[in-house]
């Protein structure tokens, strides 16, 4: 207990429920048709699709259950505690510079000796009970800011809500610029699933007719605030778009879900939306699936490996280590769906070593763990829009996401320095905390009045650039280091390449160009990228393809090497454009489950 109401959150209900479920659900305590591993966007959608179709599902979550009624504290003010936004003394997030300069594993550094828990940069007073302790979950190799969350719903409890679709520029990227290979499927294969996800979960946005980011079935869009309108008008003259952000948040309400209400424009969705307008896997997918009577959820279930059956091309179940008791249990089912997140799914498969699969299950191509990709970010620009300097505050942040500049490089033209592209996300106006105050010089009444003078005028945008899927960017099992449960950890071998760095330079130049066009004052440009992994958009380490020699899964995200093992997360994605990943995970997971349901109906799963 910290004697701090913002930190002493009552978890009794969630912990009691977790214990009850973990105690009662045992191997053989029931029969399941399918085991799903992970409960975030991927596992949540997989479990929902199957359970709603009458399939008996066992969902294994490595963390505990969540009590969304007490743990989502959407409207809590920072002054609820004199500690404000700081974590309690024993807990410490890794900061930006430390990711690059401290040795791995991060948690073992002397810098953290005095801390009980070392957390990723995503830890704050709202997420601190959800993100993992780096000491229990080490990584080795090159720097990588790997954000993991072991709790029902995973990272969807605090995700950024950017709900963008991949389009032809992603599925057919190689055909356009000759780099790497196309996806084995096209946008037309996935479009119906994006549409269904939009309708099921709710997606706010505007119809724009842009091929670089296809339109969806949108609910009421966000509006731009004053500084954003000024920016939009300026960049329109350059032929660029600045459009309302597309958010995985229901602004008009969704049908058939009693847990969710529509958006009430309060902002601060990233700490969990307590009216469930934002998509969070527990209330949007898992609770409704459980209500069907077909879903069993077992928390505290850390999957260490997939077990291979008598036929070497079929899995028989998974080995589970109970996170609390450390008891080892083998759960069996005819079909497995892995949705532990791109990198943890890959780790489970790499660790599933047998005489028939010495390099891990699904690794006959030798490519499992290769082609790790995400987004290079951190390049950003800010400035003050003259029309709002010196005006009174307006309500500028009551919406689920900020607007966005869709990709404009290599869409219709060809950039001389790099292939693929980037987009910018960000907006401005009055926020709860005036971060710009740190850049206002001086002290006293002049300082104070300058803060409020420039406060409504700030605009700030950051880039997200495609990291090319390259074979040499990869993860493997570390031969020596193990996590707190004795499971080998991932060793990263991942770096930004020449294309990314040239793209980053152009990002910085173009944001400066756009802010200048908007007549912004005091323009500041950050040219250094954030550490690898920062985007939390990791994809690609079990890539899909039609040829088992050059890919890990088939076009339905099923392992070439094990016909009853499917992947629901982003590990099979071939390339990821500039788009935030979650909406594609949801659409692809739905598509994969439709295929699996067909196989089950045909008795051929």
């Amino acid at each position, binding site marked *: 207990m910290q004697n701090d109401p913002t930190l002493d959150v009552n978890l009794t209900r969630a912990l009691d429920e977790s214990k009850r479920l973990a105690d009662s659900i045992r191997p053989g305590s029931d029969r399941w048709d399918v085991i799903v591993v992970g409960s975030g966007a991927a596992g949540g959608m997989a479990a929902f699709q199957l359970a709603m179709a009458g399939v008996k599902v066992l969902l294994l979550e490595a963390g505990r259950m969540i009590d969304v009624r007490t743990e989502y504290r959407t409207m809590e003010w920072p002054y609820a505690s004199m*500690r404000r936004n700081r974590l309690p003394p024993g807990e410490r997030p890794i900061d930006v510079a430390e990711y690059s300069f401290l040795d791995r594993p991060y948690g073992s550094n002397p810098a953290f000796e005095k801390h009980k828990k070392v957390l990723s940069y995503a830890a704050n007073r709202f997420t601190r009970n959800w993100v993992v302790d780096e000491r229990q979950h080490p990584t080795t190799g090159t720097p990588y800011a790997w954000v993991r969350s072991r709790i029902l719903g995973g990272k969807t409890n605090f995700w950024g809500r950017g709900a963008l679709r991949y389009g032809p520029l992603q599925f057919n990227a190689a055909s356009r610029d000759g780099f790497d290979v196309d996806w084995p499927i096209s946008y037309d294969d996935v479009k119906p699933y994006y549409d269904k996800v939009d309708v099921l979960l709710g997606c706010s946005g505007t119809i724009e007719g842009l091929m670089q980011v296809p339109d969806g079935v949108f609910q009421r869009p966000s509006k731009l605030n004053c500084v954003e309108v000024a920016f939009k008008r300026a960049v329109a003259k350059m032929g660029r778009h600045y459009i309302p952000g597309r958010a995985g948040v229901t602004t008009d309400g969704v049908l058939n879900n009693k847990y969710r209400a529509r958006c009430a424009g309060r902002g601060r969705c990233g700490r969990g939306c307590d009216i469930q307008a934002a998509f969070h896997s527990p209330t949007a997918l898992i609770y409704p699936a459980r209500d069907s009577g077909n879903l069993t959820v077992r928390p505290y279930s850390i999957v260490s490996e997939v077990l291979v059956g008598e036929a070497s091309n079929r899995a028989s179940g998974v080995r589970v280590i109970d996170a609390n008791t450390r008891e080892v249990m083998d759960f069996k089912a005819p079909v497995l769906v892995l949705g532990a997140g791109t990198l943890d799914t890959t780790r489970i498969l790499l660790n599933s070593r047998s005489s028939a699969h010495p390099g891990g299950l699904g690794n006959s191509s030798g490519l499992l763990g290769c082609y790790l990709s995400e987004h290079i970010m951190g390049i950003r620009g800010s400035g003050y829009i003259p029309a709002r300097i010196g005006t009174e505050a307006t309500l500028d942040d009551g919406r689920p996401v900020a607007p966005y500049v869709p990709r404009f490089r290599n869409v219709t033209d060809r950039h001389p320095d790099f292939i693929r592209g980037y987009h910018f996300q960000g907006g401005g106006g009055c926020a709860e905390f005036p971060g710009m105050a740190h850049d206002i010089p001086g002290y006293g009444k002049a300082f104070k009045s300058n803060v409020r003078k420039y406060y409504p005028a700030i605009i700030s945008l950051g880039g997200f650039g495609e990291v090319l899927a390259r074979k040499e960017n990869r993860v493997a099992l570390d031969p020596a280091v193990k996590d707190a449960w004795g499971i080998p950890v991932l060793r990263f071998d991942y770096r930004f390449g020449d294309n990314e760095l040239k793209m980053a330079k152009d990002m910085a130049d173009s944001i400066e160009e756009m802010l200048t066009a908007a007549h912004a004052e005091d323009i500041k440009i950050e040219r250094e990228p954030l550490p690898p992994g920062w985007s939390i958009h990791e994809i690609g380490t079990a890539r899909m393809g039609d040829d088992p020699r050059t890919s890990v899964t088939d076009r339905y995200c099923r392992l070439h090497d094990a016909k009853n093992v499917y992947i629901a997360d982003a590990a099979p994605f071939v390339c990821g454009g500039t788009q935030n990943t979650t909406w594609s995970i949801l659409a692809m997971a739905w598509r994969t489950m439709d295929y699996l349901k067909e196989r089950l109906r045909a008795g051929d799963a």
Partner: protein
Amino acid sequence: MHDGGINRRQALKALGTGIGAAAALPWLSDGGLLAFARIQETNAPPQLKVLSRSQFATLEVLVDAIIPTDDRSPGAKQARVADYIDLLLSEVDRETTLAWFGGLAALDAEATSRFRVPFARLGAGQLDAILQTISRNERAPQTPLETFFVIAKQATIRGYYTSSIGIHEELRYKGNQFLREFAGCQTEDGQDCPHCGQKHHAE
């Protein structure tokens, strides 16, 4: 219960609250409630955690010089930024705490050598003279006092603009409330916008 003439009801009244607030503070005994009421009333700091009385007094003067009271809203002292920093220093590593102790002592030394009084007792003009000196190279501080100014200013900004005074009275932040719909710039609704002066029809 009586204590210096104030009973529980009067204490609640002093808090500007009624039965509801008492129900929300169930852990407070009558004595605790009275102490709480006095803190609210007098703005007296709670028990200090790290700083001595005189260090605290120096710090209060410093943060209030960085963000003072003006016509619009109270300053950092009333927003209890010094309490925020005291708690902060009780939880950071010892080196950071010692750096703050050193900074506060250096402020006193500067005040004494220039004006022959401790920092907390400087007149307004004297205080301003010292602040001017130590904020001179804010972008690239050269001396220990210049460095301390930057550290103290950043902490003051964090403490002040996360306080109720900073958010509601100074910035007049309007978010974090239930809306029927987010309004945005009024040009978005086909009107000229009174907040930014932009016309519905872009030039």
